[in-house]
């Protein structure tokens, strides 16, 4: 009987073409939109680029030339320098072709354009220019002061100021993909998983006599409700798994999104996430005797809220939640799914990943159990 029910559940699911079609198309449309929108953000915003700067000299300063040449050459060049007169420098600054003007008249001073539309990084670039000017002036001041107080030490002081030192050692924290925009794509996968709640909701609709004709027929059939429900659940899980696998495959191989971490585990996480979303819908659908429309709205609305809290619309939302109400991230299904993919990407071990996988499994089991408990022994005098 179970297999018979399962067969018909799968056939029914395949006939709800528009839902399946849209559950598969939905991440594709949004994935393409994200890909287009985020194409250059990581390189534009997070990574360093050469800062264009104009230099105006009122007196010739060969030392400054040497220093500027040193910082504008090589693979890790910081500045791209143009030596121009004051008028041309002003024009370049107004046209935003340079980030600032370095005025050299013995000491370095900086002129920048305060643009209301400039983004935070632009100000960091200006601050870097100011620091450069400051470092140059400081070197001059220190050399002048040391030599004035002890002329014999002039050689040692100049050597110490010009010798290359490396006081800071970089400690890399991950071998994964550092692009934080990946978070939006993991959130998209979480959203597809959460929308699996609609599939879960369908299970209860098809088994509740007051919500569908099929439910009414099932209620008076001799098949035990537990068998019918279990077959429906398994059938829906198979359909949801197919949706999740197609979504991950599209994002990974068509849009070439580098999620980071083991690909097999990314699929596993997404499938588990889909089952979690489905269980969520199954549980919501089993609560009370609301109409289909109300239950659908609750599913969509709560799914949307979960995705919002896990950072789908605003990237730092999960961080804010972690700071103020950390327990929300632990039980928010969307946050658990995105955390799981994040740990796969960033961590070198599977310690935290395993915790999130267990959380997904436990949450799914609890939600399905709650669904079963609320559905059992529900009788209808008249439908």
């Amino acid at each position: 009987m179970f297999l018979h029910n399962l067969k018909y559940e799968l056939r029914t699911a395949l006939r709800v073409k528009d839902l399946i079609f849209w559950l598969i198309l939905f991440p594709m449309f949004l994935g393409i939109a994200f890909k287009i929108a985020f194409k250059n953000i990581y390189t534009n915003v997070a990574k360093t680029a050469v800062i264009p700067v104009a230099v105006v000299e009122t007196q010739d300063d060969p030392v400054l030339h040497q220093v500027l040449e040193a910082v504008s050459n090589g693979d890790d060049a910081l500045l791209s320098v143009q030596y121009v007169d004051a008028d041309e420098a002003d024009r370049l600054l107004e046209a935003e072709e340079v980030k600032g003007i370095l005025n050299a008249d013995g000491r370095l001073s900086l002129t920048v354009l305060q643009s209301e539309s400039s983004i935070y990084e632009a100000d960091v670039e200006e601050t870097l220019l100011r620091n450069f000017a400051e470092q140059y002036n400081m070197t001059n001041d220190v050399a002048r002061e040391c030599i004035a107080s002890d002329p014999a030490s002039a050689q040692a002081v100049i050597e110490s100021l010009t010798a290359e030192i490396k006081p800071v050692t970089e400690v890399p924290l991950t071998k994964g993909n550092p692009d934080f925009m990946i978070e939006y794509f993991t959130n998209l996968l979480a959203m597809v998983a959460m929308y699996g709640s609609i599939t879960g909701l369908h299970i209860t609709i098809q088994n509740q006599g007051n919500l569908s004709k099929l439910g009414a027929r099932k209620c008076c059939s001799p098949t035990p409700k537990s068998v019918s429900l279990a077959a429906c659940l398994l059938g829906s899980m198979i359909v949801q798994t197919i949706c999740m696998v197609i979504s991950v495959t599209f994002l990974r191989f068509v849009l070439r999104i580098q999620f980071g971490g083991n690909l097999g585990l990314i699929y596993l996480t997404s499938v588990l996430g889909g089952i979690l979303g489905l269980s969520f819908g199954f549980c919501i659908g089993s609560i009370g005797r609301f109409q289909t429309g109300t239950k659908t709205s609750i599913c969509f609305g709560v799914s949307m809220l979960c995705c919002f809290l896990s950072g789908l619309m605003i990237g730092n939302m999960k961080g804010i939640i972690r700071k103020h109400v950390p327990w929300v991230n632990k039980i928010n299904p969307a946050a658990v799914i995105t955390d799981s993919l994040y740990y796969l990407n960033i961590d070198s071990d599977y310690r935290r990943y395993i915790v999130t996988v267990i959380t997904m499994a436990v949450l799914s089991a609890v939600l399905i159990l709650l669904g079963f408990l609320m559905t059992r022994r529900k009788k209808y005098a008249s439908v």
Partner: protein
Amino acid sequence: MQVFKAFIKVMRKKLSTAFIYIGIFLVIAVSMTKSGQNPAEQVFKSVKLGVVVFDEDDTPESRTLREFIGTRHNLKELEKDTDVIKDTLYMGMNTDIHVIMTIKKGYAERLRAQEYDDLFENYHIHDSYYSILVGQLLDEYVSSVRAFQASGRPLSDAISDTERVLSAETKVTIRKADGEQNSEETSPLFDDYFRYLPYILLSVLIEVLCPVLLAMGKKNIRYRTNCSSVRSSSYTLQIILGSTLLVVAVWFVFIIAGFGVFGMFHGTAWFSLLNSFLFAMIAVSLSVLIASFNPSELVVNLMAQILGLGMSFLCGIFVPMEWLGEGVIRFSRFLPAYWYVKANEIICGKTAFDGRQLCVYLMIEAAFAAALGLLAMVVRRTKYGRAAQLA
């Protein structure tokens, strides 16, 4: 007004669903505003990063350095745990901690022994200006200490002289761009609320209005209406009247919520009302267009998310427009949310206030609403014309 009455009747039945969406999106709208990133620091000297300094040396010299870093940046506290450090730095763009470094054990000893390499560790996820900025400061500090030591001063004097020299300000002239000004009539919270409002309006109005329109457009009801004495134009007008009533009510709820958060609007801030109202009209036209294709309610929900999220990411609602590539911006000009964001930037003072330009943007929005409305009417006429023939 039978059609209008029927519309209201259907609407009342769908009210509980509508309230769920309005409630949830109200929570999202207010939370978005409160958590706004406000990434644009406007004053040059205020660029201060959040820096966590783990002092493993814990000597007077290392404490002095920590305090010195605190004069240039904001010192933050953080648990010294690799997982916490990773989580913090990965989202470094969005949290208040940008750089995490360690003053290594033996710092003071090594300075005394005139060894200057490998004194600090900087935890690193990817190259960033933040790391360079703090790295520059540390280089500057150590170079100066080294030079003073080379001139024969003891370490304590070298450190105090370094602090004195580094406290000298470098002259920075800030030139204002022509015509740009700050809007004193809006606040960053206000700007954020109205920046995110198109997503909310689009999602809510499609979710709330479409089910009512779908119920009114059901084949059997439509056939009955077609053979009734109600004229087609009268039917359409009454539907438009009912839709407008619903939309104005929803729009009003979000504006009242705005009043609740920011108090009474002043000056140019009132233009935000007009801007958001025009966008609400665009959302209505889009809803009518979607409903014309008679999709299932589930598909309507998914369409609302695709349109709402897609437009928000492509038009500079969720990520600042400056972050988007030129190609994206060129494409997003064909989307109404782009013009809403441009108008909002003028209203919020992000770009120079230009009344003429603002009018142009508002008119483009109105044109979008009209064009989508006309398209919806053409689709409905074609589909219902066919239905009438069948009937």
